[in-house]
C-alpha cells in the first residue's frame, strides 16, 4: 500500500521528471518533495504553486459549472523548457492537496505524465 514517499518516488520515475512535491494548498506547506526545486527551495515552490492553485480554485470561471466537491482535476503550465503538472488529490476527509510534477519538456511526454500522475494521486488515497 503506497504512502507519501512511494507516491513521490513514483512521480519521479515518470520520464523527464525533475521534481515532485505533495503540497497542501490551504497553507502552502510541502508535505513531501523529491528532486531539485525549480525555485531553489521546495518550500518556496510549494508556496508559489499554492498561489496558482488558489487563484484557479476560487475563480468562478474555472469552477462555476463543475462538480462542486472537486471542481478541478489538474492545472498544466506549459513553459519553454518544461511543463508543470499540478494534480488535485481527492481525499475522503477535507483536505486541500495537490501533486506538483515538474517535467522536462524535451524528455517528458505530457499526456503520459498526466495520466500517470493522476493514477498516483488515486493510488495514494485509495491504496
Amino acid at each position, binding site marked *: *500500500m*503506497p*504512502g*507519501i514517499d512511494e*507516491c513521490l518516488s513514483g512521480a519521479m520515475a515518470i520520464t523527464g521528471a525533475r521534481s515532485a512535491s505533495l503540497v*497542501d494548498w*490551504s*497553507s*502552502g*506547506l510541502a*508535505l513531501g518533495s523529491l528532486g531539485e526545486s525549480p525555485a531553489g*527551495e521546495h*518550500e*518556496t515552490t510549494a*508556496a508559489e504553486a499554492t498561489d496558482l492553485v488558489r487563484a484557479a*480554485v*476560487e*475563480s*468562478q470561471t474555472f469552477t462555476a459549472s463543475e462538480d*462542486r*466537491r472537486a*471542481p478541478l482535476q489538474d492545472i498544466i503550465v506549459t513553459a519553454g523548457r518544461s511543463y508543470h503538472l499540478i494534480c488535485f*488529490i481527492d*481525499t*475522503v*476527509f*477535507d*483536505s*486541500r*492537496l495537490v501533486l506538483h510534477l515538474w517535467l522536462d519538456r524535451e524528455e517528458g511526454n505530457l499526456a503520459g505524465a498526466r495520466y500517470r500522475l493522476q493514477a498516483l494521486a488515486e*493510488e*495514494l*488515497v*485509495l*491504496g
Partner: protein
Amino acid sequence: MSAHAAPTALLPPTVPRTPGEAVGLLAAREATGALRGPLGSVYLTDGLVTHAESDRAPDLGDLLTGCGRLAPGEWRELVEVHGPHARVAAALVDQGRITRGELELGHLETLFDAAFFVLADTGGGLWRFETGARHWLGPVAAVDAARVCRESERRRHLLDGIWPWPQLDTAPVRPAEAARRPSRRPPGRRRRELLDHADGRRTPAELARLLGRSGFGVTADVRRLAAAGLLDSAPAVVPGPVSVPGPAAASAPAPAAVPVSVPEPVPVAAPVPAQPPPPAAAEPAPAPEVPRSGGLHRRVPGATLTGAGAPGAVAAGAVTSVPAAGSTAYGPRPLGAHALGAHAAGAPERGAPAPGAAPRSDRPPIPAAAHPLTVPDPDIALLTRVLTLLEARL
C-alpha cells in the same frame, strides 16, 4: 522566510524563550516525550516531532468522523481499545478503515495544524515537558523539529498578511451585513460553507471541528472573509449581560433581518448603514410593493432609495438600474443604491432606464466599489486604526 528558525536548531539556546526554541532545544537533545503548553502538546520521539494536538485544531478522529468515514462511536472504541498500546494508527490501516496514504496525509496535516496553534502561542503560561510520554495514535511519520517550527512561523506571517486581526481567531464569528447580499457571496465552496455556519456563537476552532477541516485552513478563511468585509466577530457576546451595548448598537440590523426571510434573496436588503429606517423611510416602500404582484422584487421598508418611488422606476431598477436620482441624491449612502443591484450611478437623465443599462460602462462598478470593503486590497493600516479606535471606545 525559512531562515528564521534555522539558527534555533543549529545553536539551541539553553533557556528557551519561545515554544519554538523549546522544541529546538528538545530536538537537539534527541528527547522523547511531550511538550505541553496552554493550547496543546507537541510530541517528540528521539528529537523528531511525531505528533501534535491542540484544542484549536481538529485531530485525525475529527477529520474521519466529520466526513462520515467513521462513526464517532467507532472512533471512540478504536481509541479505547488500541490507544493504551499506542496502536490506533496501525489498527485503522489493519482494519481497512483508511489506507496508508490517507493515514499519512491526515496525520501530517493534523500534526502541522496543531503544532501551529501550540507553537505560535506567545501568551506565555505554564509549559512543561513530560519525558517519555507517547501519543496514543502510535507512530506514523516523524518530522524534523526545525521544519515544524519554521512552518508554524510561516503560517503566523501568512495569517497576518491576510488580515492582521488575531482576535478573530478565538472569538465567535458571524456574517457581516454585507454578506447578506447575494452579489457578495465569497469565492470558493469552503468559504461559502464557512460563512453559512458562522452563527455568532461558534469560534473558528469550533467551526473547524464541525466542518471537519483543518484549524489553520478555517482560521485563514475566516480572516479572508473578514478582510472582504463579509464576516466579523460577534461583539463581546460571550461575557453576557455586560455586552448589551454591543448588540444594542447592532440592533440596527434587526430590520434588515427581514430581507433575509424574503422568499427571493434578491439584493433588496439595505445594509442598514447609518440611518435607522423609521416609518418615514418605510412609507414609499409599500406603494411599489403591492402593485408588483408579479413578485419580481419586493421592496423592504427602509430599503433606502426613497426618491425612487415611481413604480416604473422600481420595476426597472430591480433588474439592472435605478433612476440616478436615487443614487446621486443620496450619494453618501451608495449602499442603498447597489443594494438594489443598481449599476446606474451614471444614468442621470433616464427616468425609466433602458434595459441595456448602457450607463454601466460610464463609470465602471461605482456602487460596488464604493463599498470600502469590496476593494481587493483594503487599506489594512487604516482599517486597523479604525479598529483600534472602536475598541478603545468600548
